[in-house]
């Protein structure tokens, strides 16, 4: 068992304005990753403003005080870099990996949009990016079979008012209603140095990064009071399974079984991570062996299970299967539920456990094999657990999980009484 999942140096500095700067030097390749996590996501959105955190992420690429519209992308790509950003219920992240000599440019760009977005934000930009996001929604959720599964699962798992009740992409109605003043206020409220972590990994030094961070971010004032998202840590079990059946244009019946488990980062969620791998990763997993190979009721490429790594409330575990031709949605749902139920009753064998841990070990080192993968991990652990060095504990924690713990956690959180089941059935074609 490795002692550490992060065998590189980590240094953390807090600037006077509260910005945490995490540096991890690695001179292997002449590239450097810059990664910012802002501790704001769709869990902060009030009713009527769903999708705003994500739409805001788009606006961050459209110019700031000293950066013209479209210049951000042009400067990073023109420096040879890769860049993107993502929003989820928990947080918003922004990242670029550039050849090492362009580190200062990347930090200048990030500082300018942290401290100077509002003066550059125009109605025209908002209208344009609103259209882009509505097309993103159409392309990813509306125009593909089963595309809205995640949008339907969340309200089955989390009650109204819970920070995870609505999906990050938001509703078309809310997006249409978005006004400029709300976004200006959004930036002023959440995009503060004391609500962010800056991680830099790769071909640089701690001294260089801290000096540059001080130079570019040091003048951005902190915000004294940043409102917290609603507390979602306790979700009382309803004692009644939540079920939804959607009859629509899909090519085959598909079932999703979902449970609330434990928050990412907790010991319980480490068990869930291993459990999900036993259940649904690879051809040796229980779902594949039982439903795709054994009973042959599920399509082999479309069975699986995974946890969604959310940290501020019990995170979802989702298992899914799609029916082979001639198999009904009912039969598939029963088969899927049975395999999930057995996690509490049929002990996980040593071979199953070793297989899961081997796959997770490879997955871990795959993320750590790039400077951008490492930078994102450091930002996560600094933001969510207040100490980037705790990143080193995750892999050993997975490897310490026992079969008994899996059975206990399964009995605790995977009960049929507290299960959300979403079934898609093909529409009869007349």
């Amino acid at each position, binding site marked *: 068992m490795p002692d550490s999942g992060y065998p590189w140096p980590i240094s953390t500095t807090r600037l006077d304005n509260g910005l945490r700067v995490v540096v991890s030097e690695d001179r*292997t*390749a*002449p*590239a450097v990753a810059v990664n910012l996590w802002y501790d704001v996501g769709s869990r902060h959105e009030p009713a009527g403003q769903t999708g705003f955190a994500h739409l805001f992420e788009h606006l961050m690429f459209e110019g700031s005080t*000293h950066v013209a519209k*479209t210049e951000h*992308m*042009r400067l990073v*790509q*023109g*420096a*040879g*870099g*890769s860049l993107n950003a993502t929003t989820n219920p928990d947080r918003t992240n922004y990242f670029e*990996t*550039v*050849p*090492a*000599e362009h*580190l*200062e*440019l990347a930090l*200048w760009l990030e*500082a300018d949009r942290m401290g*100077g977005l509002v003066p550059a934000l125009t109605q025209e930009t908002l209208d344009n*990016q*609103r*259209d882009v996001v509505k*097309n993103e929604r*159409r392309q990813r959720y509306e*125009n593909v079979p089963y595309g809205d599964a995640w949008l339907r699962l969340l309200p089955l798992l989390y009650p109204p008012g819970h920070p995870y009740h609505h999906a990050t992409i938001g509703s078309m109605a809310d997006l249409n209603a978005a006004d400029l003043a709300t976004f200006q206020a959004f930036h002023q409220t959440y995009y503060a140095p004391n609500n962010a972590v800056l991680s830099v990994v790769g071909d640089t030094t701690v001294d260089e990064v801290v000096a540059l961070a001080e130079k*570019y971010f040091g*003048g*951005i004032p902190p915000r004294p009071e940043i409102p917290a998202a609603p507390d979602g840590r306790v979700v009382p079990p309803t004692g009644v399974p939540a079920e939804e059946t959607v009859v629509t244009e899909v*090519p*085959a019946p598909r079932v999703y079984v979902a449970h609330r488990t434990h928050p990412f980062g907790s010991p319980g969620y480490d068990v869930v991570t291993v459990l999900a791998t036993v259940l649904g990763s*690879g*051809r*040796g997993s229980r779902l*594949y*062996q039982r439903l795709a*190979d054994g009973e042959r009721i599920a*399509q*082999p*490429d*479309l069975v699986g299970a995974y946890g969604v790594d959310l940290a501020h409330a019990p995170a979802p575990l989702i298992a899914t299967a*799609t029916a*082979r*031709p001639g198999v009904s949605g009912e039969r598939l749902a029963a088969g899927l539920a049975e395999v999930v139920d057995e996690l509490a009753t049929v002990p996980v064998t040593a*071979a199953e456990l070793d*297989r899961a841990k*081997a*796959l997770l*070990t*490879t997955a871990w*080192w*795959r993320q750590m*094999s*790039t*400077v951008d993968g490492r930078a994102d991990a450091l930002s996560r652990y600094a933001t969510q657990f207040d100490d980037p060095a705790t990143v080193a504990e995750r892999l050993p924690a997975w490897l310490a999980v026992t079969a008994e713990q899996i059975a206990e956690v399964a009995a605790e959180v995977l009960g049929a009484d507290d299960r959300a089941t979403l079934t898609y059935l093909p529409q009869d074609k007349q």
Partner: protein
Amino acid sequence: MTLIADRPGPGTARPYRFPQVVRRSVAGGGVVAAHLPGQNLAVAMLLLDAGAGREPVGREGLGGVLAKALEEGTTQRDATAYALAIEALGTELVTGLDWDTFQASVQVPVGRLGAAVELLAEAVRTPRLDPDDVRRVRDDEVTALRMDWANPGPRADAALRADLFGAGNRWGRPMYGDPDSVAGLDVEDVTVFHSEWFIRPGTLVVAGDLDRLDLDALAATAFTGTGGGPVDRGTPIEVPVRSERRIILVDRPGSVQSTLRLGHPGPHRAHPDHVPIALAGTVLGGAFTSRLNHLIREVRGYTYGIRGDFASSRRFGRFAVSSSVQTAVTAPALVEAVGEIARTQAGGVTEDELAVARSWRAGQLSVELQSPRAIAGALSTLVVHDLPDDYHARLREELLGAQVDQVSAAAATHLRPESLTLVVEGDAAVIRDELLATGLGELTDHPSGT
């Protein structure tokens, strides 16, 4: 508020280096490896000259069915035992297929690579190919393709490919086949394809810490029991270009977006203009700030994204643009996309645009080639296209040295706006009249079904 107004310039560039490449010939096969000191993960990828281009016409999807069938048990163990053995090492058997090659790879912590290559070779060289299993895998693959073809895209891609290259040719049909072609495969097709192409040694690509790996032992494992000499790779194919632009409409009733696939034939991979062509494609549709993405997404808001590029294999190539646009703006999006292609062909690129394109493409050679998987992919390019060890360093110099007149000349020569095939997959009842009214070309309705 104190923000620094002045944009900083670059620091001193660190020298570019691609990992050290090691080549060996062992037991009739080749090894191409990259040394990644200190890297915990390692990748091994077996490349076979058994790409989709080797499939007989009418048998499209054969390689895909064989790839899946490899994991249905070997002469040594059944499917479940195989899955448990390879996953216990921390990897799945990853297979891939393109026009030129079939690839099978494993990715594991470096100490386990020997055992993983043994299992890789066991599946590729000695699969059981039990007839019942092969038939079941085929039927599953038909179902999987039907699932995929229920999404927007595959039908439009197939319509474009057939129109560019001719449905009578293998390269005019979908790379992975379609539900009907796969349904028509029988067991013998699969076993014959295996014995013809999967017993030849091929090339083993390795990316990892070579101080902790024994290349000769890995190669001996990969090439045991192989035979058969090198095979003719064929010469580049002359693909005629259309004399007139045309629209093909693929109906997708109720679709809230229209899927656009625009294209024409292009140069094969070994064409001497490869670098300027790639840069012209980058300016037009490759980078986020490309002409197409800037206009169609950032100015008009018609789409979440639009991309265009030249892609090429050993024997043929194509230029293509792809996007999904809101149904209501299908016609203007199409007109403006064609307009940008024509403008780029006629007027070439500017120095500012080229500066971004060349730096981006050159920088990506450091930024995107970090993981063992990415390095293995870069090595496979060397193998498939017979390129030297210092190819990536030379490519970088060529990209950085490219001049506006070269790239503009490549755009003028290799973009054919008047010969484009414009495939639109969307709600025909809503968009058909508007498409006709664009005057972009004659409109053909694609037959329904696949």
